[in-house]
């Protein structure tokens, strides 16, 4: 199979879905000629024109809300928020409008929109350009939350998100854009939302992660194997819907869990995973359920501080080793 980057995979998904379905259109700041701050939409303006690749003024609340309206009227908008940190401005539209429409108004109200955005640190962009805010949206019934960690997943999940009839928060990661991997060129290859991926099978400990942390967990698992520790890595892919079955099956096998979360510890989605495991397979646990996360601080711009803050391959390795060796 071909090897392409995460960025290219996302672009392919957009391009294929726009080609298949004329109702799909894109909206966001500087997504046209500029191709988006991270280049994901580069070239799409030329292919589809300014009506379907629509540069917006800097008005996150306005254009996210407009995408909801467009979805209700039968379009399938994919909007880009340049950095996840700015999703703060669109919270009301996503939470009080998009998320609630179907539950309250029933089948007549369908809101098939995707909000693409990019979270995460590692690029020294500082406190307001490095946040991972996915946890908030997992606490909002009616929103799906997706966070791919590989090029193949990026493409397959974005296609599924676009085809989904619900509002989807689609979280990309700065450090993943350049990563390369094998990706199907078949426009029919879609990865369903709600199925986790066992990125690596193992027996001694389960590492649960999503987005960039999945990639780091995978590398940590390699390192662990050199120490004779067999780690299973579960890449959640989507947080909502959550594939709890895959988690449970793994816990029943390994009896030890390390949840790895990039965002600050308190109130992150790792807590939810921990709570779910406690509620469902408590008796299978042989060791405390642990989380690895950024401490409860904003991420700094300074490389030295940012590096010190974020979980990474070696910290995952250490935490998992301790957990297994007790």
């Amino acid at each position, binding site marked *: 199979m071909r090897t392409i980057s995460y960025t290219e995979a996302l672009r392919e998904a957009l391009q294929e879905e726009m080609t298949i379905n004329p*109702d799909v*259109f894109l909206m966001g700041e500087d997504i046209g000629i500029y191709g988006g701050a991270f280049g994901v939409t580069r070239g799409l303006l030329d292919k589809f024109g300014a*009506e*379907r690749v629509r540069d*917006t*003024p800097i*008005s996150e*609340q*306005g*254009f*996210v*809300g*407009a*995408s*909801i*309206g*467009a*979805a*209700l*009227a*039968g*379009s399938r*908008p994919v909007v880009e928020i340049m950095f996840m940190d700015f999703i703060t401005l669109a919270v*009301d*539209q996503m939470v*009080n*409008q998009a998320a*609630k*429409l*179907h*539950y*309250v*108004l*029933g*089948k*007549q*109200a*369908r*809101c*098939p929109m995707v909000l693409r955005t990019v979270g995460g640190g590692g690029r020294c962009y500082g406190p307001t350009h490095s946040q991972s805010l996915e946890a908030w949206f997992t606490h909002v*019934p*009616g929103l*799906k939350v997706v966070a791919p960690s590989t090029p193949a997943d990026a493409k397959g999940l974005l296609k599924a998100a676009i085809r989904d*009839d*619900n509002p989807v928060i689609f979280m990309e990661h700065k450090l993943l854009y350049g990563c390369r991997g094998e990706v199907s060129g078949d426009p029919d290859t879609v990865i369903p939302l709600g199925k986790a991926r066992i990125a690596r099978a193992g027996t001694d400990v389960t590492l649960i992660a999503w987005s960039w942390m999945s990639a780091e967990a995978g590398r940590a698992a390699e390192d662990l194997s050199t120490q004779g520790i067999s780690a299973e890595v579960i890449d959640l892919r989507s947080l909502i819907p959550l594939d709890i079955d895959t988690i449970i099956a793994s816990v029943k096998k390994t009896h030890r869990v390390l949840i790895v979360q990039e965002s600050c510890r308190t109130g992150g989605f790792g807590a939810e995973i921990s709570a779910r495991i406690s509620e469902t397979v408590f008796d299978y646990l042989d060791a405390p359920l642990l989380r690895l996360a950024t401490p409860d601080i904003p991420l700094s711009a300074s490389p030295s501080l940012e590096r010190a803050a974020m979980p990474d391959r070696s910290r995952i390795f250490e935490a998992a080793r301790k957990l297994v060796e007790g």
Partner: protein
Amino acid sequence: MRNWYRSMLVMRLFEEKVEKLFSDGVIRGTTHPATGQEAVAVGVCSVLKKGDYITSTHRGHGHFIARGGDPRRIMAEIFGKVTGYSRGRGGSQFMADYRLGFLGGNGITGGSIPIATGTALSAKIKNTGKIAVCFFGDGASNQGTFHESLNLAGLWKLPVVYVCENNLYAMSTHVDKAIPIPHIADRAASYGIPGVVVDGNDLLAVREVMQAACIRARSGAGPTLVECKTYRHSGHSRGDQRIYRSREEEALWLTRAPIRRFRAVLIKRGALNQENDRRLRREARAIVTEAVRFAKQSPDPDPATLEEGVFA
């Protein structure tokens, strides 16, 4: 024309009934009556075509009725019954009928402005010929959503009409204590779109302005901001003692009340006499009575359905 008159009567009696039911403790939750604003709702909706979109507000029963909503199902929703438009899930502020193009009330002041804008955007991209009408209040015009949305619409010349019902108050706050200029319509200039002030208690005037705005929208020339000067005779929501305004002011506005005024027009034009006025009032009353009966005898939603339908 008599239909419009009847529609206004239904709206008025409906709201009065709802207020009564609330103060009697028959209904729970909250409600925002649009008593006195009938000419806006009916005037605006009277110029729309089938398929056009409307977004409403927290004060939306009248918009819904004027757009052809079934008073029985609206009342049932206010009662929280399963026969309501939202099967009891939404309540007074959150019901819709998409077949009528009525996309729903909104609990968030200003929350529907981007959404109406987006329906117009979709209509434009898909070239459906539909237009959108967005109702909101004077208070809502101070929300960021107003600014961002009207800018998008002005920029992209979207087929949308923004209808600001300036009823002088946002809850207890007089418009002069919230907006430092006399006419909200003048804000349209910030977005390169026309702003029009109209007497919102004059149904025919509202129609005239709206007709022009809709033609403009349909022709691709872009949005219009229509400010309808009106007054809410009732309190903001149940329990409002209206201590923030004088009884004199209220009395003054009663003399300008839209239904009475339109009746005078109809009579003058020979379209109405005492007899059919009485008949229309009887009909309106019957509609509201039937709505209450329907709502009362409808069942509550089944708690077993509680978790259904979060996702499509």
